[in-house]
């Protein structure tokens, strides 16, 4: 069975139902709108480029066992296996990856979201606060007093 999806800029994609159902949001929509499947499902936050990429990911992972989120709350320390295909998939520029993370978040494609978060974590890792500020264009808005307080709080977090 096929499902049609419409990106925010009006492009329509047709995919297998089981592929689309990797998105928790679409899965829930399909349950609610069972009788009414003639018109495409609108995805207001996802552009065509990102949607194409998300679908590419879902096509590849269509047969993966689903992750029970509660069950694995703490097993994220041991991240989901990343195969060669995933590694190839994440070779994109940062902007694209952040867009993909947003798309995965709004569509709730859990494995892709985790893959993206791992990518983002790898970027942030080993960066100094200044470097992170530069990367994300954030201002250092701490007052000196706040800075002191943070230093004080910090010392208790690793005993």
């Amino acid at each position, binding site marked *: 069975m096929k499902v049609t999806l419409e990106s925010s*800029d009006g*492009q329509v994609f047709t995919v297998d139902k089981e592929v689309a159902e990797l998105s928790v949001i679409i899965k829930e929509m399909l349950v609610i709108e069972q009788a009414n499947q003639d018109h495409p499902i609108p995805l207001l936050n996802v*552009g*065509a*480029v*990102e949607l194409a990429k998300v679908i590419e990911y879902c096509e590849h992972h269509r047969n993966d066992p689903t992750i029970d989120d509660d069950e694995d*709350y*703490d097993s*994220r*320390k041991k*991240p989901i296996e990343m195969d060669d295909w995933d590694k190839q998939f994440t070779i994109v520029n940062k*902007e*694209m990856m*952040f*867009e993909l*993370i*947003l798309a995965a*978040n709004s569509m709730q494609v859990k494995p892709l*979201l*985790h893959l993206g*978060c*791992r990518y*983002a*974590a*790898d970027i*942030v*890792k*080993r*960066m*100094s*606060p200044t470097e*992170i*500020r530069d990367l*994300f*264009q*954030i*201002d*250092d*808005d*701490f007052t000196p007093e*706040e800075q002191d307080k*943070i230093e004080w*709080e*910090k*010392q*208790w*977090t*690793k*005993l």
Partner: protein
Amino acid sequence: MVTSSTTTRKGLPAEVWLLVAEYLNHKDLLHCVLVGKEWHAMLFMNLWRSVNVIDFDYESIPPELHPFGIGRILNRREDYNKMFRANASHIRHLTVASIWSLKNLGPDCTNLLELHHLPCLWSRYHWENSQGYDQYRDLDRQLRERGTSILVELIGRNPRLKKVRLQLPDYYSPLAIVDALSTRKGLKSIRLKGSVEYDGDWSSFPPNVTSTVLQRIVLNCKQIKCLSVDGNIRESFHNRKAQGDGEGEGERDEEPMAGPSELESLNLCSTYPHDSVDMTAILPHVPKLGVLGLPCAMMPNQFDEMAQVLIERKCCPMLHSITLKSYSLKVPGVINFLLNAVPQLRDLRLIKCLGFRASVLKPVVDRHTKTLQSIRIVIPDMDPHPDDVPEAVSLLSPLSKIGSVDVSERVVYWQRRAGHQG
């Protein structure tokens, strides 16, 4: 085609950053919270995800020299209490040593996934000639009297607990604590540390409740996959008068959970069966058991009874891994057990067993050659026999055709090579 790239560079929503934080270690997170107010507000709580407070007993070391920052805690206890309480709700993985620290967590500590209470010697804490020692000792006594209830309440407040490691003889009432644990339906792994006891007259000691503890966990916590009891557990080890203080001992209604037990791994290697543990009462209730570490030095008749239960009732068909620790292999029954009671033997570990001879074990290896995947032999360091290592090597060398044999000082280890099945 229009895309919105570069517009949302810093625009990942907070819930996504929280997921990202899961992949960052403590040091990376420290950098992140220093980025700016927004990031600080968003990520600060993640610094408290995993907390180790190792406030051990280091007698006579001045507080400022204590390792792990405990001296700092003791010098600035008020600050520490405040921070601990304020952030207790963020803690998911907690390692603490003292009851005192457990108490300081306060009522907000409700999100624990993992609780590890180290063997704590804190009651013996004293700094000679130190100010405040009397005060400390009073606090110590008061807390220890309330130790059971502090721990029971903490367990009761944390519905998502998955793993616990506890040192039981330090508390007043192990059974009350086990009962509290059995209300946590998400628990997957329990490790309890009892006391290591050797043969001797223990009649003047508090009653041994190891078997009761085991049975209660097996019958009431059916979802547990991994259970380890290291050493015998005694009721009220420190203070016998506390008996009866504990909640619901003795008169407790047994209400076994429905369905079979999920237990896959049971390790009893430092418990002493002639004192308390009755394997025949446990094995029939654990159909999924795969890994079994047998209690130390079981009597020959207990060994035979256990083998009989396994053979006649076929109650643990998946049993595949056996660990024997500090056994004398000369005891009749041990070899028989290995030959007949575990038809699918895959992993065999003989830890510091006496009377180890290749000729004794050869029939076992021959019988299970098809299924065996690994054999580990650790030679005892006390009472060694000069031939032990050569004997172990000669036992395992015929298997070197289908696997690799490693010999290092006192450990001889064989593992089947991939692709050499049967």
